[in-house]
């Protein structure tokens, strides 16, 4: 666990300024959406970890998408398993940070109606679990070029929903169903981690 902690700190520090910028941007983003009157709560829940993921993990994956860097990392006293577990752990941490950050914002601005629905949190978390897991699997199995596929699909899907005037939070999903979807997404994320470890290039 100690080595995984150092790998996480490495990911946070190697591009600290860019990551910090992404983190600050998430606040600006929440503020912008919340004050626009739309209160796109679930979008914020997805985009905060999404931005953090782009700033820290994706950039580090880009740096590590090189034979020499991967070789260098593997030569250190860490295993392949630790290298992959670290990225999955950090991406899950970003999901938790996204939820906490969004809640803090809504608590700080009580004038904005609080659109809290547990099923929406579960659903947005499920989407991010699949998104992050697929990205990391494609990165470790193939390369950074291949891993750029899920972000594109993700952005296009959001655009499609927007064009169809479907607002994510207007979708009513019963809590038991949302719970099942979240559990499935967590299992898929875990399986993607296991497959990434077994099939690492």
């Amino acid at each position, binding site marked *: 666990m100690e080595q995984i902690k150092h790998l996480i700190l490495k990911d946070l520090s190697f591009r600290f300024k860019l990551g910090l910028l992404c983190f600050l941007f998430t606040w600006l983003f929440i503020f912008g959406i919340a004050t626009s009157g739309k209160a796109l709560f679930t979008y914020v829940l997805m985009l905060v970890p999404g931005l953090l993921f782009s700033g820290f993990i994706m950039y580090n994956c880009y*740096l590590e998408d090189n034979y020499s860097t991967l070789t260098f990392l593997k*030569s*250190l006293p860490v295993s392949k398993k630790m290298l992959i577990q670290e990225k999955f752990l950090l991406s899950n941490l970003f999901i938790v940070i996204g939820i906490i950050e969004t809640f803090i914002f809504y608590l700080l601005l009580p004038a904005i109606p609080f659109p809290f629905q547990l099923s929406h949190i579960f659903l947005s978390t499920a989407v991010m679990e699949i998104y992050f897991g697929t990205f990391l699997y494609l990165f470790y199995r193939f390369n950074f070029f291949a891993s750029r596929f899920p972000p594109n699909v993700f952005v296009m899907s959001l655009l499609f929903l927007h064009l169809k005037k479907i607002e994510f939070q207007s979708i009513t999903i019963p809590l038991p169903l949302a719970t099942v979807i979240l559990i499935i997404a967590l299992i898929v994320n875990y399986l993607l981690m296991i497959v990434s470890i077994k099939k690492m290039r």
Partner: protein
Amino acid sequence: MMNTILEIKDLKKNYRNFSLNSISFDVKEGEIVGFIGPNGSGKSTTMQILMGIREKDGGTIRFDGKEVFEDKPEYKQKIGYVGESLDFYEKVKLRKIYQFVRSLYSDWNDELFHELIRTFDLSLDKKNRENSKGMKVKFCLALALATNPKLLILDEPTSGLDPIIRIEVLNILESLSTQKNTAILFSSHITEDLEKLADRFVFIYRGKLIRELTREAVIKLNKPLDILLKQFMDEEDNADGTDKTFDFERFVV
């Protein structure tokens, strides 16, 4: 009597066009072993398997008396490694790379690291891509030596170094072996370096270990290492019935 620090037995690795064929040899404490072979003979593959960079298909590796497993990387705490490709984290400053590497080792010698950085005239505020090949080698050597290793695995460490720094590096390695009893497994295509340093020579060709000679045996044979390598390779080819002689006459019109 010196203890065995590294023991490799029947090491195998299969690729589509190449395979490592039952490589077995050992390295003793304080001993410098020169690993000699032409390009593509399996030197780097063997060294990368030792470091857990590549997975082996068979055989056993024992380090400091214990069997080594890829998913238990603690053994690498006591092995310093300088690989052949050094273009890692090109956009990151050396200081950040050093801080990250230092955090992973329990027995890191910070004083020695900074001393080496001064000796090698390196700046930690430069990004890795701003350094020449020689400077990258020196940075990696400083990282490897600061881990207080029991074994150093060096894959072509002196290539790309200017002659003065090369001699300096060789002297550091020699004193490391004599004063700190560090074992060194060293591959280089500059056979003079190996002749100067190594106590023993392991010759590898087409994924097969073809000879193992002590320094005394090489002196007795009274031939330079590259000539010996060529002779052993020819003997191996003849034993296989493969004629590797290039026939220029075929191209005369």
